[in-house]
């Protein structure tokens, strides 16, 4: 026994030595002084010229060096192409390598990106012709210049790729007028076109590569600020700066994109300075990060709107008053506390708060008396209701437990919870084989939210309450056809109020986007959509 303890100690000691040695070698990686502009004056002719670089890196406590950021995320992207996945994890890496004609700005409004400007005019047949003027001199990672034919090829490919085709429905007849002008048409005025063009699925790639069957999953070539150099499956992706990037070469020259599935392991890695930036911080670790002077926490109100979804086709949930009674009976504050550990807000309406067109008027908040009143009016004996809530992850399970407790103690409803894995949950809920579940929808604009969640055409897919309300459908379609922002906002607000009254489902919370990074990493902005801009980061 004693011997084995000694051996173990020795082994550990060896490891320590080795790790120290490795750290040393890490710092020796030759690094150009870059734009930090600091401490370059100590440069000498000796072999130790890299030393001045090593020092700041040590001070920064960065994982690798002052030109590298190690980003860590929960899920590996299924693909590094832009059109062969629709995963959030894939979206993150797409933002590094690809760009789109338009891009959402920090306030989630579409702004020109690869397109310099655009115009539109209504045609005689009622359709609308859009003209996009492309930027000149935009270079791909392979050195080629972006031309209009690339846009045509990219958008046409998007239309046939099932995983992104949803975002390629609004436009038709994409044509290249000249090398720097692209036109396309929409069936009537379309507000969604601009948002659709911001989607990763509509990223622009070189036409010749698309035609020759280039494997973008091995070598993703776009115009984005970084190009991928290595993909160690299940482990990490490495990106290096695209020196010809249209907005100038990024300061961070290397981005290592690590995959760590476990939340606690991500926080540990961050605290141990193995990584510099954690995209999905576990809400339980929020306080730890806050209390750590070496780390910065970013807690951004998110767009993910989450609810207790109830199947409106199932009795007695077809009764609006029953739904309203349940809505008023649930203590959402408790849900936020328990499910999110406070990292989020109570949803103040049936539509996502913070987006153009939100209106909370007519929405009932937690109110036991009101709940009892609705219950009495409904004519349904609430204590006879029994149903099952499907939850597919820990957060949802925690939320569901509060819901279960509230409804049981107030009305004596009989509620069971069932855990399902994501696949089962998605299929079962889409097919309507459920009574209730904890679900959500994330979208960066109100229109796609409303269309996805409530339009009758999405029954058996994303309209899981199975709401089939012609009046609502009409309002949503009207909003989609309203290009003018102010006018559209009015339609959307009306829609929000209508939904608050209809109460198809029971909003619970809007999850915050939590991320954390080394306090010395600067320029980190995270938008409400969870989007961030690595090309703006730098060490200080």
């Amino acid at each position, binding site marked *: *026994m004693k011997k*084995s303890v000694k051996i173990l100690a020795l*082994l*550990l000691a060896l*490891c*320590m030595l*080795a*790790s120290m040695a*490795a750290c040393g070698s890490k710092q020796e990686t030759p690094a150009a002084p870059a734009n930090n502009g600091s401490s370059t004056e100590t440069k000498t002719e000796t072999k130790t010229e890299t030393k001045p670089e090593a020092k700041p890196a040590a001070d920064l406590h960065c994982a690798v060096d002052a030109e590298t950021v190690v980003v860590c995320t929960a899920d*590996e992207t*299924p*693909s590094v192409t832009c059109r*062969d*996945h*629709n*995963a959030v994890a894939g979206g993150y890496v797409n933002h590094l390598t690809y760009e789109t004609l338009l891009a959402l700005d920090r306030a989630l409004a579409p702004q020109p990106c690869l397109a310099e400007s655009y115009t539109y005019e209504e045609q005689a047949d009622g359709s609308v012709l859009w003209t996009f003027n492309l930027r000149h001199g935009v270079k791909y990672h392979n050195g080629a210049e972006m031309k209009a034919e690339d846009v045509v090829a990219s958008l046409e490919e998007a239309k046939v790729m*099932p*995983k992104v*085709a*949803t975002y390629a429905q609004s436009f038709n007849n994409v044509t290249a007028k000249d090398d720097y002008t692209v036109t396309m048409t929409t069936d009537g005025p379309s507000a969604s076109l601009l948002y659709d063009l911001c989607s990763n699925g509509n990223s622009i790639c070189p036409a010749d590569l698309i035609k020759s069957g280039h494997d973008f*999953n091995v070598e993703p070539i776009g115009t984005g600020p970084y190009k991928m150099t290595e993909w*160690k*499956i*299940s*482990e*990490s992706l490495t990106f290096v700066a695209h020196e010809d990037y249209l907005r100038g070469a990024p300061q961070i020259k290397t981005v290592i994109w*690590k*995959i*760590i*599935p*476990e939340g*606690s*392991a991500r926080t*540990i*890695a961050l*605290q*141990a300075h*193995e990584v510099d930036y954690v995209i999905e911080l576990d809400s339980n670790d929020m306080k730890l990060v806050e209390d750590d002077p070496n780390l910065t926490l970013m807690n951004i109100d998110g767009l993910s709107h989450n609810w207790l979804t109830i199947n409106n086709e199932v009795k007695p949930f077809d009764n609006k008053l029953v739904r309203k009674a349940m809505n008023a009976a649930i203590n959402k504050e408790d849900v936020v506390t328990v499910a999110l550990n406070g990292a989020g807000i109570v949803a103040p309406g049936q539509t996502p708060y913070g987006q153009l067109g939100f209106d909370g008027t007519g929405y009932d908040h937690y109110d036991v008396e009101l709940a009892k009143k609705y219950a009495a009016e409904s004519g349904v004996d609430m204590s006879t209701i029994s149903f099952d809530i499907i939850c597919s992850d820990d957060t949802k399970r925690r939320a569901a437990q509060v819901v279960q407790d509230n409804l049981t103690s107030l009305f004596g409803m009989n509620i069971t919870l069932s855990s*399902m*894995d*994501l*696949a*089962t*949950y*998605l*299929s*079962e809920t*889409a097919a309507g084989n459920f009574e209730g579940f904890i*679900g*959500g*929808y*994330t*979208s960066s604009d109100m229109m796609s939210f409303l269309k*996805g969640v409530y339009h009758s*055409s*999405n*029954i*058996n*897919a*994303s309209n899981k309450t199975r709401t089939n309300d012609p009046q609502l459908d009409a309002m949503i379609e009207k909003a989609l056809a309203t290009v003018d922002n102010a006018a559209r906002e009015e339609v959307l607000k009306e829609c929000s109020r209508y939904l608050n009254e209809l109460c198809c489902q029971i909003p619970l919370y809007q999850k915050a986007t939590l991320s954390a990074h080394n306090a010395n990493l600067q320029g980190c902005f995270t938008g409400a959509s969870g989007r961030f801009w690595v090309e703006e980061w730098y060490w200080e």
Partner: protein
Amino acid sequence: MWKYILKRIIALIPVIVGVTLIVYFIMSLAPGDPATTILGDQATPEAIAQLREEMGLNDPIIIQYARYMLHLARGDMGTSYKTKKPVSIEVFSRFPATAKLSVMAITFSTILAIPLGMLAAVKQNSFFDGASMIFALLGISMPIFWFGVLEQLLFSLKLGWLPSSGNDYWYSIILPAIALGFHNIASVARITRSSMLEVIRQDYIRTARSKGVPYGTVIRRHALRNALIPTVTVLGIQIGALLAGSTLTETVFAWPGMGRFMITSISGRDIPSVLGCIIIFTLCFSVVNLIVDLAYGFIDPRIKGQY
């Protein structure tokens, strides 16, 4: 001996067919449509239909299975639903990591378990016997994901000795290998102990002692090798448990292996990938057990002649 190996390899074929059959049908009958799963919460019905068609999910399951097996017979494990890469690439790019982890874990547990089991047997019913068995059992008693997190907290965060996750340095493997190996100490130590207990009662041990050989030497020279035979068997069987354990360990330590891939494939209903993993797991398990059977020959001359 080559004939024997060949026979064993041929015997593998029905096992592989059986395994794929079972898993294919379990996965296909599972609720959860691969297309819906890939497209997620916000998919439109048209997109789902389009993807299902593309993935060939509209045929009857039997047809799908037959098609899969025909491809497999030609050595083609199909294409991952999720990543659209060939499953063989997906699996074999992760296999080395899992193999490395398993070998390290087995090595770690064997190095600790065999002396532990030996000493416990020699000092049967003593305090040391009980204590060492309890120590060995600790590993099997702690849920691996809990033990893993505790390891990370201690060695990575508190002491800063070892990286908490990933596979960046050669020593990244230490923590996951300990977590995984610790789990197997008990089985190996236990079987070593009980076979040792049996061996030290054998007549030839008495013969050796009657020659005047010191007890310690008797144990090392005569008892150990004989006691190793059942231990090696257990090591072979442990590979199965180890591969299963690797799914959890790999998740906790972000180890880029097959176990983690299999879990995500199961939850993504990525049937070709799941089958690919299962086939590799089965092959590994069978090949390791074949090696174990061959190893008997080297340990025990009596068995050598039987191949």
